[in-house]
């Protein structure tokens, strides 16, 4: 499964675009998080990797901006590999390796609606990546 971020504008947020794409392509998508209001919004969806291209094309054709989001950034030089973040993650995106390295699975992380790990990091090595909704052109 791959994750894509769909960005809706004030103009198209009221259209049932996501449902249309699902119906047209007949491909199921899992909505991971959604932050939407009348001015637009972001929906993070998980789609089968083999169909990513087709799905991206369909959304773009309907005027939706599609991104492959980086939701979290971990500064490995700062990280102490303690794992203070580990037990806080609600989606099990953080784990210990055999040698006790702490690793983040960026594909599982849900990013800004959560962020439970960010202020728990004593080395301040974790940052949520702002999706810059207000700065878009």
């Amino acid at each position: 499964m791959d994750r894509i971020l769909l960005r809706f504008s004030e103009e198209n947020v009221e259209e049932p675009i996501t449902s249309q794409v699902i119906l047209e392509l007949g491909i199921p998508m899992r909505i991971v998080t959604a932050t939407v209001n009348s001015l637009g919004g972001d929906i993070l969806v998980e789609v089968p990797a083999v169909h990513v291209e087709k799905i991206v094309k369909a959304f773009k054709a309907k005027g939706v901006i599609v991104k492959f989001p980086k939701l979290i950034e971990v500064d490995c030089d700062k990280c102490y590999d303690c794992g203070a973040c580990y037990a806080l993650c609600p989606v099990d995106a953080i784990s210990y390796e055999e040698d006790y390295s702490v690793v983040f699975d960026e594909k599982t992380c849900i990013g800004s609606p959560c962020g439970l790990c960010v202020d728990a990091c004593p080395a301040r090595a974790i940052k949520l990546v702002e999706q810059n909704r207000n700065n878009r052109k």
Partner: protein
Amino acid sequence: MDSSKKSNIRTISEINQKIKSGDVQVVTAEEMKKLVESSGVEVAYKQVDVVTTGTFGAMCSSGAIINIGHSDPPIKIQRAWINDVEVSHPGAAVDLYIGATMMSETQPYEYGGGHVIEDLIAGKEVEVRATAYGTDCYPRTKLDTTITKDDLNQFFLLNFRNCYQRYVCATNSRDEVIYTYMGKLLPKFRNATYSGAGCLNPLMNDPNYETIGIGTRIFLGGAQGYVIGEGTQHDPSNRFGTLMVRGDCKQMSPEFIGGGAFTKYGTSLYVGMGIPIPLLNIGLAKKTALRDDEILTDIVDYGVPRRSRPKLGKVSYATLKSGEVTINDRKIKVSSLSSLKKAKKISEKLKSWIENGTFFLSAPAESLPTDSVCNVMRQSKEIAFVSSVFHEAVTCRVDEEIKAVAQRIISKSVNHVIVTDKLGEIKGIVTSWDLTRAIAEGKSRLADVITKRVFTTRPEETLEEASRKMAQHHISALPVLDHEKKVVGLITSEDISKLRGR
């Protein structure tokens, strides 16, 4: 065969001879457990001269003493700050102690003494500000300069309590997230944290301090340092021993020492420490074979802000390292706050130093105490608890008429009525102000008026904690709940101010 292999004991000078000749046999504490399991303790004792240990964790009772040299005209510093972190001035003129937990006045909780020490060790420039009252011999009253570690005459880590033998596993019973020195604890036992390296911990591998004492050479922050005595709160009889250590910061590396920030708690210093345990006798070989499943610690409820926090059970370091513990029959994830990866790396680094002949063992000049006790504070003024102030609460049910509740407020002359269910559990709170507003807004159902999210207290909480809660949430009363979450009373800000006025 040399004679030492035939006899049953080794001496430190024999081991140092072997380090010199390159014949020394060193294993890390982790490797030692495996060796003993596969070959038995006698074979392991014959083969191994030294076992190396390691730990890397937040050690708040740490700091560095620096001497910044005399200015011209000279100053006798009274107060001083480095990168806006107040440092203490314990001595004559220009000696400063950077305490790890002192916080920046401009970036509190994010930057502190631990970070200043880290920045200096990393070679960064820091800003020193100081004030003084001025004397005939030290006329200067103000100072503002930038320095690096190269400008310091002395820069020594001087930690008065480090390297706890083991520590507790923390969790939280409260309904809210709490931020502690044991990290972020989610409500209702949803996570847990622990600290310490378990079987790699230095003091755990020599629990009776047979080889560790004043003058023991150790790995400290990536350089060679020394044990200078037992640490404060050293509590050997409860297996909570601690160490006081010293090391030259100018030789240290940011890889093994650095600042830490604990949200809403404060700053600290992560310290990397490793101690070599010479296997002087077979007893020590047995002790260094101690496994994680044999080291137990308590699971403690940090939701209760008292000195003696409730213990919820025991857990081994093997379970803690698995990432999951069972609390109240439920499995929850448990985080390590110290770095097991770095602890292991330190034990390996120390091993390579000894093998390369760059680190020699030292015999302690004096042993650490094994029978001292750690007392609690003598409090000459008694502090008050909620239990001594709270009174009976006036209650109602959610389906009662607003009028009936209003009458009760008048007849009992109170401002707060607690909404409970049949079992006496809290469902909400309603105040005289809420009822006034209900009339003004024409609301007739009690359910539309009550506040459902209620902040509460317990009889054993201190009055200080209760008033802090009220101030924090801008409220004037807290229902008092017992351990079964049943309402036992109410405490108001008025109750507290009456007591203070006495």
